[in-house]
């Protein structure tokens, strides 16, 4: 199994935001997590990427238990993520924002920086090249020199993708990548995700835009009140009574 959670639980006081969730993310596919607001999707992401410590349960990445690792160590193993709100440094250029994404693959320290050693120069170039590569991959070469504060919402999303990709990940978690952008642009982002999978990067996303998820995802998990209520392909999930009930409310048979 690529990434696997076992009875993953996160308790906030008396509220179980995520409850006993077993889920496996399949390598080389687009996986998706859906569910109504407050279902615990983002919490699930935070647990897997190390932003939160689970109350109980485990997370495995390629057979290794990563449950209690801090997020920076998980990132080094090849797990990357984006956030719902894109936190870019608006006074810096797009390129400058992305360069730091490859920092985790470099060794140089402050002394190298002050003395501008050979190692430093090599690694600085390495980070710059990586940034250009991922900006090209995400289709942003035309705005590399623009300030991050002056680009469109869709471009910001793409920069966030680029930043996540600059860490050389094997799997990328995308938290609502299509929130706040129009249908045409959503299409473009969907293409980008497909391109990532083609390149061998596993994708796992949270998304509210059902059309997009159903078209895109090969494996879907549905959360409701922190619990997994369904799992499978788009068709399987859509015909699941529990899912219909969770989304539309009331009795499924009605």
């Amino acid at each position, binding site marked *: 199994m690529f990434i696997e959670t076992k009875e993953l639980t996160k308790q906030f006081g008396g509220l179980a935001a995520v409850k006993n969730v077993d889920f496996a993310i399949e390598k080389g596919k687009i996986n998706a997590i859906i569910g109504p607001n407050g279902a615990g999707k983002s919490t699930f992401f935070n647990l897997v990427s190390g932003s939160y410590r689970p109350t109980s349960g485990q997370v495995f990445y390629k057979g290794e238990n990563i449950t209690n690792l801090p997020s*920076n160590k998980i*990132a080094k193993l090849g797990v990357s993520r984006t956030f719902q709100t894109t936190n870019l440094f608006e006074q810096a250029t797009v390129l400058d924002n992305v360069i730091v994404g490859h920092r985790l*693959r470099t060794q140089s320290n402050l002394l190298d920086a002050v003395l501008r050693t050979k190692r430093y120069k090599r690694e*600085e170039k390495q980070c710059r090249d990586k940034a250009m590569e991922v900006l090209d991959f995400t289709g942003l070469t035309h705005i590399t020199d623009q300030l991050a504060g002056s680009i469109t919402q869709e471009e910001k999303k793409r920069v966030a993708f680029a930043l996540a990709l600059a860490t050389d990940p094997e799997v990328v978690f995308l938290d609502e990548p299509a929130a706040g952008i129009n249908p045409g642009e959503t299409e473009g982002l969907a293409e980008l995700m497909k391109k990532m999978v083609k390149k061998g990067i596993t994708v796992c996303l949270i998304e509210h835009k059902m059309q997009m998820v159903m078209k895109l995802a090969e494996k879907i998990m549905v959360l409701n009140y922190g619990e997994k209520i369904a799992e499978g392909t788009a068709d399987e999930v859509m015909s699941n009574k529990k899912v219909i009930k969770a989304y539309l409310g009331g009795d499924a048979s009605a």
Partner: protein
Amino acid sequence: MGPLQKKHLIITGLIILAGIFPFINQNDYWLHILTLSFIWMIAVYGLNLLAGYTGYLSLAHAGFFAIGAYSLGLLTVKAGINYWAALVLSCVITSVIGFLIGLISLRTREHFFAIYTLCVGYVIYLVIDKWDSLTGGVRGLIGIPAPSNIGPLSFESTLSQYYLVLFFLLATIFVMYRIVHSLSGRTFIAIRNSEELAGTIGISTMKNKLVVFVLSTFFAGLAGALYASFIRFIGPDIGYTTVIFDLLTYLLVGGIGTLAGPVVGTMLIVSVSQSLQFLQDYRMLIFGPLLTLIIIFYPRGIVGFFSDWYRKRQSTKLQSQKKKQVKSNMDDEDLHEDRVKEG
């Protein structure tokens, strides 16, 4: 001339000006004020790296400044160590204490960090004030020697001390420039931007924050040590809370998170405050509102204001150039079409 060359020219000009200033103005009083400003600038640079580039506003830095000053004073006066060894040791002592305090204080964030470090700074002041047998308490420490000679170089006169401090200031600025324009600097800025995001792109936030904290206390300690050997007398009030707010004012007015900010802010406030000397403490009636206005309208200070303005001008220039290009391309095409028609 490109903008980079222009920048280099300005910087070289300023360094030369600082170098020849004592020959232009032979007033010892001004030399004294300027040397003091340079010392403050070194401390402000330390604070800037932490508060401006990493996003952790420490209010304990007057305390670290005092630790540096007292370390030098005690090592030279009471232990009788050679000045230069004492200078290095003072920086080391300050950094070690900084490391220990950083370990604890960096577990807090934002305003909690500010309040915690404010308390730390005050505790440092109290320790210096009350530990009579070591620090001399309120009487202070007198008879601190001037820097000892290096070969034929003597540092007894105000002029030579001016150059010594200028040397340390330039070294500080050089180190800051290199750090800020490096992968490490980018790492710190990423932490300032969003610690959560920094963590998920593989940055060990605690380690980096601690490195910055120690480094910034190092510079505060260096400034303190230079202060002690320049003024030759120190009292506990150099670690008092008002000092950190002075440093912070220099930083905020000049521009927090900018490289030139500490120089601009310190020079401006010190010179204005010198020329308003006759108003005594009523000067604060001018500084207070001024500071408030700057924070509201120019959160990145005077330097931030100018760099934003410069950038805006550049980008409008670029856009109008592009427009012109597009237009001329279109004209070319029109011409081409005309020719085709004629042909």
